């Protein structure tokens, strides 16, 4: 009780956030998790029968006359029997069949590889470019405000729009091929950027980086600004080269911001979806997220749930590993 008394303010402050999160995200995720362990064949049938039962029950309650009501009740009895039969079929109960199906699917394995490649490549590229730009922007120079605005503009463009503009750039008759052709950097045959493999991965990474760069730059700028001037002044006195100072002073001080930026980005990068779909198509460049989506569109909810869970698992492994490294690092340095 004393805990509540001392910390009543804190608890009040935390409550709205967590109530919202638990209610609207944790619960749907848990239900999806549950769905993933249901055999797809069972799940599909069960879905049909269960919603039929719910529907008929509604109809019975709203039936206009007794005759219709009796008809509905008969249907209800039939449906309930079918449901019972289903429960006793070999497909009922907890099942790993969805996961088995996914991990033995050639296309899904390729999707996992593509997802990892795009994310890791993307993160590295985005980190390097964003950090460089943030460093430049933390110095005073003429036109800084102007340049800062330029860097931030892609943030305002909705994903579907940026994806479409990118298709105009990366189409075989697109602007990039045109630039390359005029610069003499390609032959007569236009480059098919969507052919799969590393070319398509690179295309998706570039398009994604373009869109998310402003965010990372912002976070890094905030981090650089958070370094007190006294630290800068102190480090300037001892006269060592700036690159050295960057790695030994600036970078460590920015660790919380870097961690924040990388994890935030990683979570979205793993889930990237509209961009690869529109730019490359699932034929050559499947990703876990596009896989999840197409199975969902085919009403294979259980398979889709399993696919989504695998993605979530990958993300969690990545995040935990990273946080572990950071925490351990902090201990050794403290």
């Amino acid at each position, binding site marked *: 009780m004393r805990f509540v008394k001392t910390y009543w303010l804190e608890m009040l402050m935390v409550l709205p956030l967590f109530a919202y999160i638990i209610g609207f995200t944790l619960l749907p995720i848990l239900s999806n998790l549950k769905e993933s362990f249901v055999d797809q064949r069972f799940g599909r*049938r069960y879905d049909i029968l269960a919603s039929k039962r719910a529907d008929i029950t509604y109809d019975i309650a709203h039936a206009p006359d007794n005759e219709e009501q009796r008809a509905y009740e008969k249907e209800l009895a039939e449906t309930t029997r079918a449901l019972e039969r289903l429960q006793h079929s070999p497909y009922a109960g907890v099942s790993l069949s969805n996961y088995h199906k996914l991990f033995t699917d050639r296309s899904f394995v390729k999707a996992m590889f593509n997802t990892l490649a795009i994310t890791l490549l993307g993160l590295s590229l985005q980190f390097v470019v964003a950090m460089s730009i943030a460093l430049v922007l933390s110095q005073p120079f003429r036109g800084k405000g102007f340049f800062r605005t330029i860097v931030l503009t892609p943030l305002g463009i909705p994903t579907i729009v940026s994806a479409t503009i990118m*298709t105009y750039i990366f189409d*075989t*008759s697109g602007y990039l091929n045109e630039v390359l052709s005029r610069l003499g950097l390609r032959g007569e045959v236009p480059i098919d950027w*969507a052919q799969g493999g590393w070319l398509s991965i690179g295309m998706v990474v570039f398009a994604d980086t373009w869109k998310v760069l402003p965010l990372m730059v912002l976070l890094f700028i905030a981090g650089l600004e958070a370094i007190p001037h006294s630290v800068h002044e102190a480090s300037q006195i001892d006269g060592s080269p700036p690159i050295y100072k960057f790695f030994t002073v600036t970078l460590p001080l920015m660790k919380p911001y870097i961690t924040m930026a990388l994890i935030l980005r990683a979570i979205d990068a793993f889930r990237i979806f509209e961009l690869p779909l*529109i730019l490359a198509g699932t*034929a050559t460049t499947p990703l876990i997220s596009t896989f999840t989506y197409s199975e969902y569109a085919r*009403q294979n909810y259980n398979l889709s749930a399993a696919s989504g869970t695998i993605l979530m698992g990958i993300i969690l492994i990545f995040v935990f590993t990273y946080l572990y490294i950071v925490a351990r690092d902090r201990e050794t340095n403290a």
Partner: protein
Amino acid sequence: MHHMVRATLGLLLFSLAMVTCSSGETLSIAASLGENEWKVMREHVFPPFEARENCRIRAVNIEAGDTLKKLEVMHRANRMSIDLVLLDNMNLAPYVEKRLLLDLTKYQALIDPEVDASLVQPLTFHGQLMFFPGRPNVQITYYNTDVFNGTNQTIPETWDALLEVAKQLKAAYKVGKVAVHGTLDGNTTAQVFEFITAAGGKITTFNDAGSIKAFTFLQQLYPYLSPETKKANWNTTNKFLSEDTLFLARNWPVGMQVIVQQNQKTNIKAYATWAGPAGRATMIGGDVIAITKRSSNQELALKFAGYFMSREMQTLLVTELGWPPIRSDALGSVPEWQQGFFKAIMEALRYGHYRPAIMGWSAVEKYVNLAFKDIVIDGRDVQTTLDTYARDLQEELDWLK
């Protein structure tokens, strides 16, 4: 003062109530239409009905791919705010499966005898009529008249000619200029269906002689197709045709709005289709009318359905939009710039076949796309792949019966 305020408020509410009550019911209609199509609906189709029935029509645009999800959400929350839907008929089974729609068997009489009976037959699921015909639709083959001008190239009328054309164009331009819808979704299934049927096969059997011929042909054709095939769907194909990335491709009539009207390409025309070993075959798509089960305006919706299928309305749709009619007595002349296309559409409809109205269509779609990827794109053996998938498909279809 207090009493004055209360009195005024009361008067206001009362008059508000009078106004809303006297204006009749509101019928909510959802459809997936382009801007020019909505214009015709709002200016010519809705007003006479609104006047006649003393009601208001609230029209909402829901894209074809999103309709199922939206209706399902509304149905499950028991907040159905759509009464009548003009549905794309690509995959009607889920709507029936999720019990979103009103059983129309009792209202069969609303369909006049002049309506083409073959249009109605695939609208029956489990012996119940679930949809009314709205408008039939079919893909036509668009071609670039600068290239296919009779001297350089002539439009291919057979599969062999198609293969020849693809080869020659690729040799001349170093990159393929013909495409099929290779996006591995419903678009692909529709076109594969046409190839299989044109070879005498049945898509649900999957490994019969016709299907094998069709997949073998596609496998031969693929290397000469444009690389944009994997991005070509009903929407992007129009862009590719407009910018000369493609010179020949099949697509829906909506393309003529985008290619000719919006993009102002007068050098793109269309013809019906080419012939396979078993003749010409096209897939009949289009829109059907459905009424939601939990609608609160079912009577009004039924009246509108009858109105939409009437001779006056169908004739109007022909003359204003160039839509093929569902009935034989809806004769009218199409706007001039559309006449060539309309002729192609009507001819293509003559070779039209319906997809089987089965509950497991999404399973068929899945295996068709898997087969397309494995056989056509990756070049695996036709017979063995089709046999495997035919078996898997049969298993799934049996389970879903």
